[in-house]
């Protein structure tokens, strides 16, 4: 009886020690998320640190088959030409009227050659098609097929510099959000221009939306128009998710 107890204790200690060992080896690579000072987000900060410390960073989310595709709600902004009351809304109306031929994605910041990409430029880059589950923070899920170019490929085409730490994304509906390099470089993080085998529909973020599959759906920004690579955190000010009362990392 006594012998067995010691064995169990040893097994538990050994188990904890091995987890600790993995964590310690990654510790120098991990920092708290930029929102760590916020008491309400303290749990999210812990979650972020734990995910980056303990989870395999290149694990892929589950991919499904065409038979698994489901109905897919479009929420938030679903028609920027109508609902966005800024010059960006007017510009979107023009882009949409011209079949997005004049649309440009601007890539700036810590890249060797800041440049713009047309939709055809993006389509000329190596593409990836994936059938994944969208997990909305509201509680619902949907499965869709996404075709696009990995975000990492686009940033490499602009010559992303080693000092890069965040990609800050701006949308037509004036939303700003950012990803860390782990999400930026993840193979399933796409700038998607196709959905379910066709052009990305306007309600789902045409012409290009982000897919960041390891995070909650609201991080997959629709109507992406500008990406700024930075080495410091930019909360996006009053257009940013944080000042609008949303967590930066809610991935648990």
């Amino acid at each position: 009886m006594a012998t067995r107890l010691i064995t169990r204790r040893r097994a538990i200690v050994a188990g904890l020690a091995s987890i600790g060992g993995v964590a310690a080896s990654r510790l120098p690579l991990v920092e708290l998320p930029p929102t760590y000072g916020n008491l309400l987000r303290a749990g999210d900060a812990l979650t972020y640190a734990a995910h980056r410390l303990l989870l395999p960073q290149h694990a892929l989310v589950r991919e499904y088959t065409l038979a698994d595709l489901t109905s897919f709600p479009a929420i938030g902004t679903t028609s920027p030409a109508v609902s966005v009351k800024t010059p960006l809304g007017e510009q979107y109306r023009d882009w949409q009227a011209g079949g997005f031929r004049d649309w440009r994605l601007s890539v700036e910041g810590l890249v060797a050659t800041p440049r713009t990409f047309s939709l055809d430029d993006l389509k000329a880059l190596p593409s990836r098609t994936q059938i994944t589950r969208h997990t909305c923070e509201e509680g619902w899920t949907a499965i869709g097929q996404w075709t696009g170019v990995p975000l990492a490929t686009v940033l490499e085409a602009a010559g992303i510099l080693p000092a890069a730490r965040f990609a800050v994304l701006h949308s037509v509906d004036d939303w700003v959000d950012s990803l860390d390099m782990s999400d930026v470089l993840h193979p399933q993080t796409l700038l998607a221009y196709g959905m379910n085998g066709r052009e990305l529909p306007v309600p789902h973020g045409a012409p290009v939306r982000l897919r960041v599959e390891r995070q909650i759906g609201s991080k997959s920004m629709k109507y992406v128009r500008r990406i700024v690579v930075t080495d410091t955190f930019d909360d996006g000010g009053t257009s940013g998710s944080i000042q609008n009362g949303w967590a930066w990392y809610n991935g648990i």
Partner: protein
Amino acid sequence: MDEPRGHARWVRVSHWIGAASLLVLAVTGVLILMVHPRLYWGEVGNDLTPALLELPISRNHQHGGWDTPRPFFARADSPVSASRTYDIFNQNGWGRSLHFLAAWCLVVPGALYLLGGLVGGHFRSHLWPGAREMEPRVLWHHVVEHARFRIPPASGGPRYNVLQKIAYSSVVFVAAPAMVLTGLAMSPAIAAAFQWLPRMFGGHQSARTIHFAAFVALVLFVIVHLVMVAASGFRRQMRAMTLGD
């Protein structure tokens, strides 16, 4: 066997950390559910697919604010897309963050509690029902006594009767772990690292539904628990779980 009198200090501390975390988790959990008060079975569920259960707990209940659905494919059973035209109730900006903060407060001390209870023998001596207690005749006797509301006066700690042991063991070994695992299964980041976790529960939405069922079970437990605490002597029981005497 040498029986300790009263609740051990680490049990008392664990109890109140757990109670406070569960309260915050329950309130924020309902808040989160109010944003999408529909439950499903399987991997997928949304307003454009059939629900298992629709709860009338917020203005989002059957709000119907969707434009005409458009099929993705030219076939009769094609999945559809529709745009939402309704301004939903949504307080998840703080609700989710507070829920996960409380979850950390439950999971870390909870794991230490499980470790302590396992290694120190607390579970074996106090919580886990013995084979003799589980004999139908003994069980039936206790059920009848409780049904007649003949509650033994509080002893201020262990030993517990077999119905208490079953109730506490169900919470500690079944409901709480199911709650935590189904919660983790709903995380896209966790599901990426451990694809088997949501599969184990039959899919993401099944995990969400089980998460809700475990919540209902825990609420029922807390109600019965509080009634029994009151029936067996509220002041005595509170002193035992706080001061430990």
